[in-house]
């Protein structure tokens, strides 16, 4: 095969920037051309490396930047004014502590209720299995009583949907990390991907396999498959919902990336 695709075209294929017919041509070519397949794979790995490296920059700063010595007032300037401020602060702190203690001690006081809310032990349920029938409410509502609670794996979460039907509809919504990864494997030519700032939608997949990946950084996420909530992630708590209609739809496997 002589009509190799150049690096720019392969990169555009990787980034989903080729129009449908050209993407089909490129995919077919890459499937049959060892040289282009190798270059495409290198670009894919390179992109993954760049993405992973950039995510490192988002980690919380490990170091408090040391304060330049010039910004710290020398001892000679910390005279009476600082001492007096300290006395005022201490007096204010004692007065506030006393007021808070009085407010907490008073029955039915809102301050007491506030403390009670925050100090009462939180029950965490590690695993509860249930049907998705109870899961009609949206993420913003109170936490559901049903579901399967697990920790979000370090590397993120992968959801694999095998042999999806022609009418499969998948929607993914993420917040605080507005990127989800969706891989289509096999014959998914009929699938349409609709992306927006608030999520990704896969419509009309048939055959093959779809993989959705939720990044570990996402604090909130929701995955809806065929109109049913399958995964919700609220404040770092991941909840997987299982269908009790096994066999009637595509096989859905959920696990770490």
């Amino acid at each position, binding site marked *: 095969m002589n009509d190799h695709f150049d690096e720019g075209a392969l990169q*555009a294929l990787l*980034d989903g*920037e080729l129009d449908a017919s050209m993407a089909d041509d490129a995919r077919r070519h890459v499937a049959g051309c060892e040289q282009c397949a190798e270059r495409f794979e290198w670009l894919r790995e390179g992109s993954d490396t760049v993405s992973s490296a*950039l995510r*490192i920059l*988002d980690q919380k700063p490990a170091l408090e930047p040391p304060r330049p010595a010039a910004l710290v007032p020398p001892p000679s300037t910390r005279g009476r004014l600082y001492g007096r401020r300290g006395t005022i602060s201490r007096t204010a702190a004692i007065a506030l502590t006393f007021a808070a203690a009085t407010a907490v001690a008073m029955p039915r006081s809102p301050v007491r209720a506030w403390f009670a809310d925050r100090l009462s032990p939180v029950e965490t349920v590690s695993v509860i299995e249930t049907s998705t029938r109870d899961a009609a409410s949206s993420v913003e509502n*109170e936490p559901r009583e049903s579901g399967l609670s697990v920790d979000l794996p370090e590397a993120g979460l992968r959801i694999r949907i095998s042999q999806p039907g022609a009418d499969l509809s998948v929607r993914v919504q993420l917040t605080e990390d507005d990127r989800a990864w969706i891989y289509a494997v096999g014959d998914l030519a009929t699938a349409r991907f609709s992306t927006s700032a*608030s999520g990704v939608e896969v419509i009309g997949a048939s055959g093959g396999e779809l993989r959705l990946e939720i990044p570990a950084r996402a604090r909130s996420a929701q995955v809806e498959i065929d109109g049913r909530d399958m995964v919700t992630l609220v404040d770092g708590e991941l909840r997987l919902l299982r269908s009790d209609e096994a066999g009637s739809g595509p096989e859905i496997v959920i696990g770490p990336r």
Partner: protein
Amino acid sequence: MFACENEIRVHPGRSLSSSQPVVVSDFDAEYERLQPALWRYVHRLVGDPDVADDVVQEAFVRLLGRPDLTGDAARLWIYTVATNLVRDRGRTGSRRKRLLAARPIMPKSPPLPSERVERTERIESVRRALDAMPERDRHLLLMREEGFSYQEIAEVVGVAPGSVGTLIARATRRFIGLYRPIEE
């Protein structure tokens, strides 16, 4: 079931279960929608959270003067403004770097737990690679990472849309050549 972009938004920290949701202004909604990713983009570009705060704030102040912009247009516009602000600061920063090189300030750091040291080294290794790249390559990789289309990237970076794929591939190659990941 899924909130669309322009649906009612609530102030962070307020529960929807309590009476009616609080509708905020369009600008607040735009701010909530755009700020986290824009801050991340600028922070990745400059590596300094204070500078990222300043740039993002300045960009949003300028967005206030463009009420005609909404949705994707507002997103692309504010990223363009932020990118230009970073460029401007870069010019000032390079002068400052030369001065610091001549008279470096070497504050003493307290001893660090090994985990923190490793994390810092990992961040620094990425930072070093990015800083060693041409400015255009940094913008290409970071904007691609933010999910912008080639057309949008071309507009901000000032190149032909047809060349974006090639330029991103080259930038990736350059980054891989410079980046020395630190094993966890």
